[in-house]
């Protein structure tokens, strides 16, 4: 998170638009300020414009309209090699004809640093990613995780203030990916560089980021820290894209004190937090599966029929039919006093009003 308000505009996208064909906008009026030292993730499905934003920042794509500023200076017309931005590519883009050491020395050599300084910095960078002994190997002789670390070290070795990462962990297996997430996070904390990270993997985004910008359809749908994004989604897209989510369609009867009264299914009346729903009309209620209460005394009580039970060790995943929705998921913690559930039975379902958010009906 940005430490001070003043440093909150290290990287600025000011009304940036991008079109490839002059007919459709890939990025629509993007306004975004990234603080110094911040770890910001652009998260979104493929085709949402997040990679295009990153490429515009790196200088490989030009903005059709608007201005991109780095540390207060417009960089629209500065070629990529003069921007001094480190970048980690999706397929690592390691140079196969150079050794690991030569790959790392490359950015220092083109900056005409002396041999001694280069050697020292390369050694330091190798140590940082725990690859001290691999200096003479070729990238093709390294494992996926090692290549990833090398790519990271190469993007950092010339000490840029801003590092861009374009789905850098996409090619790794699950276990290694999780390990690398922590490693990247630690390096970020250690060096204090600003990181702009692009991914379509929400768990990656939640693990590492200070703030996440959720992209869809060329627009930032919500820009918030991970906890806020998960617990207080602004709209139906964010609610369904981040984490698991129960969606109940309903009609608003009225709103008072920020609480909406909604009719769902066949006439059941419930209360929900009015977030993004207007005063009347259709709405989408969003409740996280772990916030559903299975107890007779719960507020907003409805009847649910148990359709399916899946035992997952730490919790039981229960699919229920609630208010005409067959895909209503409840996570029942596997504690000693958890409710006894059987398929086919009907049991009471409810939630605290603050946990249920009335969002746009999209």
């Amino acid at each position, binding site marked *: 998170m940005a430490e001070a308000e003043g440093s909150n505009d290290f990287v600025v996208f000011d009304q940036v638009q991008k079109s490839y064909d002059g007919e459709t906008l890939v990025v629509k009026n993007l306004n975004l300020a990234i603080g110094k030292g911040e770890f910001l993730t652009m998260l979104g499905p493929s085709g949402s414009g997040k990679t295009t934003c990153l490429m515009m920042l790196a*200088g*490989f794509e030009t903005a059709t309209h608007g201005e991109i500023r780095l540390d207060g200076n417009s960089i629209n017309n500065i070629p990529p*090699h003069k921007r*001094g*931005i*480190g970048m980690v590519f999706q397929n690592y*883009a390691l*140079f196969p004809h150079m050794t690991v050491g030569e790959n790392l020395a490359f950015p220092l050599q*083109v900056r005409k640093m002396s041999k001694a300084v280069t050697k020292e910095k390369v050694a330091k960078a190798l140590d940082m990613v725990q690859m001290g002994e691999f200096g003479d190997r070729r990238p093709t002789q390294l494992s996926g995780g090692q290549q990833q670390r090398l790519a990271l070290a190469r993007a950092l070795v010339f000490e840029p203030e801003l590092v861009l990462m374009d789905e850098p962990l996409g090619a790794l297996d699950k276990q290694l990916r999780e390990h690398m997430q922590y490693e990247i996070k630690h390096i970020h904390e250690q060096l204090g560089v600003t990181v702009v990270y692009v991914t379509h993997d929400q768990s990656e985004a939640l693990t590492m980021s200070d703030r996440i910008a959720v992209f869809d359809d060329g627009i930032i749908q919500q820009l918030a820290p991970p906890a806020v994004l998960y617990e207080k989604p602004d709209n139906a897209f964010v609610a369904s894209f981040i984490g698991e989510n129960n969606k109940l369609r309903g009609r608003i009867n009225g709103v008072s004190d920020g609480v909406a009264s909604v009719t769902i299914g066949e006439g059941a009346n419930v209360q929900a937090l009015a977030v993004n729903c207007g005063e009347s009309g259709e709405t989408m209620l969003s409740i996280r599966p772990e916030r559903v209460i299975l107890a007779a005394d719960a507020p907003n009580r409805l009847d649910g029929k148990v359709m399916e039970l899946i035992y997952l060790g730490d919790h039981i995943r229960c699919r229920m039919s609630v208010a005409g929705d067959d895909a209503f998921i409840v996570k029942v913690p596997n504690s000693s006093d958890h409710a006894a559930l059987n398929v086919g039975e009907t049991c009471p379902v409810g939630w605290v009003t603050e946990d249920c958010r009335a969002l746009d009906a999209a």
Partner: protein
Amino acid sequence: MTDASYQTAPLPGAPSDASGALLAADGTPLKQRLRQAMKVSRRRAFLLVAPLLVFILASFVVPIVALLLYQGAYNDTYEARMPASTALLQQWDGVSEPTEEMAAAMVADLAAARESKEIGKVASRVNQELSGTRSLMTKTARRAAKMEPPYLAALIDRDKDWADIETWGAMKLASTSLTPAFYANAIDMKYMPDGSFEDQEEQRQIYVSLFVRTLLVSGGVMIACIFLGFPVAYLIAHLPARKANLLIILVLLPFWTSLLVRTTAWIAMLQSQGVLNDMLVFLGVTSDDSRFSLIYNMTGTVVAMTHILLPFMILPIYSVMKAIPPSHVRAAKSLGATDWTAFWRVYFPATIPGIGAGGLLVFILAIGYYITPALVGGSDGQLISNAIAYHMQRSLNYSLAAALGGILLLGVLVLYWLYDRIVGIDNMKLG
């Protein structure tokens, strides 16, 4: 227990014999079982390639080894038709005076060869060793049947060249079927009757310079193809697919036209009354009476060969460039490299396998080029293949043609080996 020792230890529960080798379920050693299992698939693989193997053996390996290399060192034209003199000539030391016995055998052989109408071939063979002996042989053979002893005197009486020891030396050389003479000849050396080698006379030394010229022209054509082909390949590799396909078709278009047509087109372009010279005169670059001679010389050969071989350079480079991820150059730029540095230090090294493959292809094709130099090369644009063709078609000295071909093959193999040592064959990518 470390990981490594765990790997080599027999599986727990798997039976093994006294020496520790694993046994299969039926008690035979596991390795033997595995070999048996592999045998079937190996036999199938062999049967699949067998037709191709037979074809290559019959059309490539056998002709090259048996005909080309062997014929360059073996010629029994003389021995087969003049057996009696051959036996004596082989015993003769090549320096002492020829004996009456040798002369008698020679006269008998000549008479027999004339009788069987084979004397022309024998005479040609001897003439290859010493020019002028053809008429000597045919002339002597006409009278051989009527000659009376002493035969040596009779021969010298017929032509005083028979008194010359060099004549008999040529006979001895021709009668030696397995001989290094042709290979020596192909590198401008002379194999002497006493078994030594000498340099060919100055005005007859043509093959070494022809080999050198062939190598230089091939090298020049290869370099010209690299410089002309690289930008084209780059352009095609970086265009959108539809435009790139159109350009590829244009690159391949020459393959659909006959080689002869393309070469002839260059004659129309480059001759002194041709398109290019007319244009230069029109533009005032040169005057009408001092037109450039662009064809029927080395220039014509190089220009036409470069044009014809260019696709062989473009295609491998293109296919290699196509496989270079665009992110490599982007990465280089993001790391601070200028456009030129990113190209020279990151993009260009990645194209070397393509340049190597294209270069080797063009070079080896150029070394054996025949039609183009024959049509547009004039006298100083002829290459070694034209000399080989001359000996095949005109002088009918098949053995010398084979020896020249053999040396050419050897040269290509040496260059190929050098290439492997310097660049590495594994680094080559044809597509």
